[in-house]
């Protein structure tokens, strides 16, 4: 079963038996995972909730954990609170209820230990690519001298293949290049965890594919722990080890049910996958159908 909490920590990546089993079983799911489990992860979210109106929280009781080196995507319709969760993890927003811990410490504000890639790239337009990344690098290591900063910046710009454009302003770059700079900036501060807020949402399909591949390569190389919001089911299947499915809050029969974590899908596909062969992998279509079905029929009804 996709979301069976008892096996949600890791689906043995390349074992065909596990894939077959996972495909075979249908999905009747408990939405919330057992507590004991949540205490072991590198990142722990406990009973998180956000309410702008007291009686109608947008989402409530969201609990999950992420292990070190794990890539987790979250999918849900607009307004379900994904971005709020990410912002709470980033320290840019606060939850109404619940707590978030990273590395055993409660998240109480923004921190250099968590790098954020924003949907709108959020590069400073008056700075060049080099200066944008150097700004982040100097924030992390204020004691570094300019040559050291430069070497570090160039290394990370090279990592996303933009050395030729390092002294250009963001306005001279295409959307995909800007997003690459955003990724390089986030990696440049060597965060313990990377938070990606729908980073490829505004890109065309071709560019998106290329950058997805790049991101996957970098993440695999650096063993980076990643939490990412996406609307793209294929993107989630390609990149993530686990996919969190969120439902929207809704009014049914006069009573309000808040949104929340409806299901956790463990990705059974082998970790060494590529975009090109993704749709040939056994289990891919079942998983994709399962997620799309969820988004179409169940995401809005809790």
């Amino acid at each position, binding site marked *: 079963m996709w979301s069976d909490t008892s096996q949600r920590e890791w689906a043995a990546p390349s074992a065909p038996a596990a894939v077959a089993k996972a495909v075979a079983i249908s999905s009747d799911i408990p939405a919330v995972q057992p507590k004991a489990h949540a205490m072991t992860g590198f990142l722990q979210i406990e009973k998180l909730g956000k309410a702008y109106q007291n009686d109608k929280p947008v989402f409530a009781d969201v609990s999950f954990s992420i292990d070190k080196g794990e890539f987790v995507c979250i999918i849900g319709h607009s307004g379900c609170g994904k971005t709020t969760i990410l912002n709470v993890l980033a320290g*840019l927003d606060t939850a109404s209820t619940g707590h978030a811990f990273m590395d055993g410490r409660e998240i109480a*504000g923004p921190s*250099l230990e968590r*790098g954020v890639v924003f949907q709108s790239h*959020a590069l400073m337009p008056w700075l060049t690519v080099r200066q944008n990344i150097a700004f982040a690098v100097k*924030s992390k290591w204020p004691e570094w001298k300019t040559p050291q900063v430069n070497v570090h910046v160039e290394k990370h710009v090279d990592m996303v293949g933009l050395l030729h454009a390092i002294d250009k302003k963001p306005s001279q770059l295409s959307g995909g290049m800007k997003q690459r700079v955003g990724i390089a900036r986030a990696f440049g501060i060597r965060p313990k965890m990377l938070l990606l807020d729908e980073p490829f949402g505004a890109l065309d399909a071709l560019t998106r594919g290329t950058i997805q591949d790049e991101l996957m390569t970098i993440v695999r190389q650096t063993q980076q722990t990643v939490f990412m919001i996406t609307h793209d089911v294929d993107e989630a299947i390609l990149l993530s080890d686990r996919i969190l499915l969120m439902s929207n809050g809704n009014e049914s029969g006069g009573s309000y049910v808040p949104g929340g974590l409806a299901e956790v899908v463990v990705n059974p596909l082998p970790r060494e996958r590529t975009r090109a062969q993704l749709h040939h992998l056994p289990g891919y279509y079942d998983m994709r159908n399962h997620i799309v079905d969820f988004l179409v029929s169940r995401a809005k009804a809790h």
Partner: protein
Amino acid sequence: MKTTHLNLRAAMVSLLMFLVFLGAWQLSATAPSVAGAAKAGMTAEEIEYQKMMGKDPGAVKTTGFPPPLEVGKAMLGHLADPFYDKGPNDKGIGIQLAHSLGRVALGFFLAVLVALPVGFMIGMSPLMRKAFDPFIQVLKPISPLAWMPLALYTLKDSEVSGIFVIFICSVWPMLINTAFGVAAVKRDWLNVASTLEVQPLRKAFLVILPAAAPTIVTGMRISMGIAWLVIVAAEMLVGGTGVGYFVWNEWNNLSLVNVIFAVLVIGVVGMLLDLAFAQVQKAVTYVE
């Protein structure tokens, strides 16, 4: 190619308009009045009487308005020796301009010192914005010259009062634009600064200031325009030195030639100031 062509044609039209204007000026300035014709029907005694009354019918009367050539000559004279100083009522235009520019610069600089920090505070804090709002709304529409009596009474110095008037008229556009620019800094950039744990001062100078700079400089440009308008009037009131005093002094001397020259100088200097700020604006503007 096409733009140069357009520019060339525009320059031709400008030149044409200028020549038409000069021609009209020349004609109206030199047109004789009708007095000469009246002489014909008068007896010698009548003419004598008219002369005694100061109304010489034989004299060729003009409007008294100087023709362009005369103004041109005076201009060359002034520009040839702009820095002479022959006592309090006779100084070269260069010296007068220097006085005016000095006052404007000082008043404007003081306004920057006040408007930028206060604008930052108002822009960053919704509480301060609401708290300051009534004062700004009431003080902003007051003509800067209306402050003059109060300034003269409290500051007891006409020179300082002139600078104060420049300060008070420059401060509002700068303050309002700074507050607006700071408040309108994109949330994303502030979020980036937060996630990078950037210290408040560093954030103010490296993120908010460059982000708001185009708006702030626009405010400064408006302020400078107003300051240059106001300095002429202020110097007419306060007297002593400056291009405004020069205009008033030459009016008292009934030297319209010099008044016209001063008016032109005020226009050209104002244009140069505005161009300078346009350059600054260009330097701080960014493309998103």
